C-alpha cells in the first residue's frame, strides 16, 4: 500500500481521524467481500492519471480547426465528443457551449458539484466551494474578477447551472496569433478554466 501524506494544515487532527475512518471502512468492506482493493486503486489511478482536462483540450482544439467537427459538436456534443473516445460517467449527456465575441459562457453546479468528468476529470476545490456555487449565478463578473478575468461591459454572460445529468463544456474563442498551428499545439493553449468559463486560453506568445 502506498503511503499518502496529508498536507492540509487547517484541520490536522480531523484529517488523521478521516484517515483512520476511511481505512476502517475499507477494511470492513473488504472483509465483507463488497470491494476488491485493486479496483479501488484502478479508480484512483484513472482519475489521477488518465481522465483529465487534456481530454477536453483535445475537443476544443479540434473544434478550432475542423469546421465540420465544430458544427457536429454544437449539434450533438455527446456524439461528437464520443467520436474522440470520451464519454461515460459524468459525460453521458454532453453539451458544448460556444463562446463568441459577444457571449461568454460559465458553468456551475449550485446544488452540488456536477462537472463533466469525462472531458475535464474531477473538479478543482474552488468549483465545489461555497463562494463559487453561491456567487456565479448572481454576480458572475465578480467571480471572473477573482480569476483575474475582466470582460467588456456589454458582453453577455450566460451561466449554466448543471441541475440535471447534462454536463457542459465551454469552447473558448481561439486566440489570435496561433494561425497555422497543429491541433496538438493548439490544445496546449486550452486551459481547464477556459473550458469552465472562469478563464481564457493561454496567449500563443507565452507558449513559444
Amino acid at each position, binding site marked *: 500500500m502506498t503511503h499518502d501524506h496529508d498536507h492540509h494544515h487547517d484541520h490536522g487532527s480531523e484529517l488523521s481521524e478521516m484517515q483512520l475512518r476511511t481505512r476502517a471502512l475499507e477494511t470492513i468492506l473488504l472483509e465483507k467481500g463488497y*470491494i476488491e482493493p485493486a479496483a479501488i486503486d484502478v479508480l484512483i489511478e484513472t482519475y489521477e492519471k488518465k481522465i483529465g482536462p487534456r481530454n477536453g483540450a483535445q475537443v476544443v482544439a479540434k473544434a478550432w480547426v475542423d469546421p465540420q467537427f465544430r458544427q457536429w459538436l454544437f449539434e450533438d456534443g455527446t456524439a461528437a465528443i464520443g467520436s474522440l473516445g470520451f464519454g461515460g460517467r459524468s459525460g453521458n449527456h454532453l453539451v458544448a457551449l460556444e463562446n463568441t465575441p459577444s457571449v461568454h459562457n460559465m458553468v456551475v453546479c449550485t446544488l452540488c458539484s456536477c462537472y463533466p468528468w469525462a472531458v475535464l476529470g474531477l473538479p478543482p476545490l474552488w468549483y465545489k466551494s461555497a463562494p463559487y456555487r453561491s456567487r456565479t449565478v448572481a454576480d458572475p463578473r465578480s467571480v471572473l474578477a477573482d480569476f483575474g478575468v475582466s470582460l467588456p461591459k456589454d458582453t453577455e454572460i450566460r451561466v449554466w447551472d448543471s441541475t440535471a445529468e*447534462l454536463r457542459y463544456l465551454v469552447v473558448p474563442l481561439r486566440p489570435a496569433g496561433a494561425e497555422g498551428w497543429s491541433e496538438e499545439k493548439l490544445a496546449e493553449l486550452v486551459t481547464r478554466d477556459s473550458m469552465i468559463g472562469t478563464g481564457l486560453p493561454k496567449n500563443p506568445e507565452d507558449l513559444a
Partner: protein
Amino acid sequence: MNGAQDMGGVHGFGPVEPEPNEPVFHAGWEKRAFALTLAMAMPGQWNIDMSRFARENRDPGEYLSMSYYQIWFAALETMLKERDLVSDDETVAGHALREPKPVARILSPGAVAQVLYRGGPTERETNTTPAFKPGDHVRAKNINPRTHTRLPRYVRGHAGTIERVIGFHVFPDSNAQGAGENPQWLYTVCFDGRELWGADGDPTLTVSVDAWEPYLVPA
C-alpha cells in the same frame, strides 16, 4: 430539501480561491473516500439521486463545516448503515462482525474502465410529447419539498423561457425516494438576471437551469 447545499445567491462566503497547480486529491484518505464511493455504487443498493440526498441531508451548519470528501464519506457511511451493509458496531470495531448481506455484483479491477465508460445515462424511451417548446414562457413552481429536488430556490416562482427540449430523463425527485425513475421531459430554461436578482442585477446576465416538466407551469 431547503438545505445548505442549495447555495445559489447566498451571500458572505468570500472570494473564490483558485489553487495554482492543484493536485487531483489533497490527502490520501480523499482518494480512498472517492474510490470507495464509486466502487460501492456497483452492488446497486442505491442510485445517484439517493447519494446526492444522503450528502445534502444534514444540519446546515454541519454541511458547511465539512470538506467535500468528508461529506461524500459521511453519506457513504449513512447509506451503508441504512441498507444493513455495515452496522455501527462494525464501524467502531473497524472490522466485519457478521456475515455480509448478499449483493448482486461487485466492481472488479478489470471492469473499471468499462463501467466508467458506460456511466449512467438518464435518458429514457417515451411515446409522450413535451408540453413545452423552445421560446415558450414558463414559470418555475414554488415548491419546498423536504425530500430531494433539483429545482434551486433562487429560480422558484420566477418566469423564464424554454431554450431547449433536452429529452425524457429520470426524475430525481422520485428516484431519490426509491419511488422509481418516473422519467419526465427535461428542458433548459433561461432566466433574465434581473428577473432573478431584481433591478440591481447584472443586465448582461442570463442564467439557465435544467428543469423537469413537473417543476414548470405556463407563464
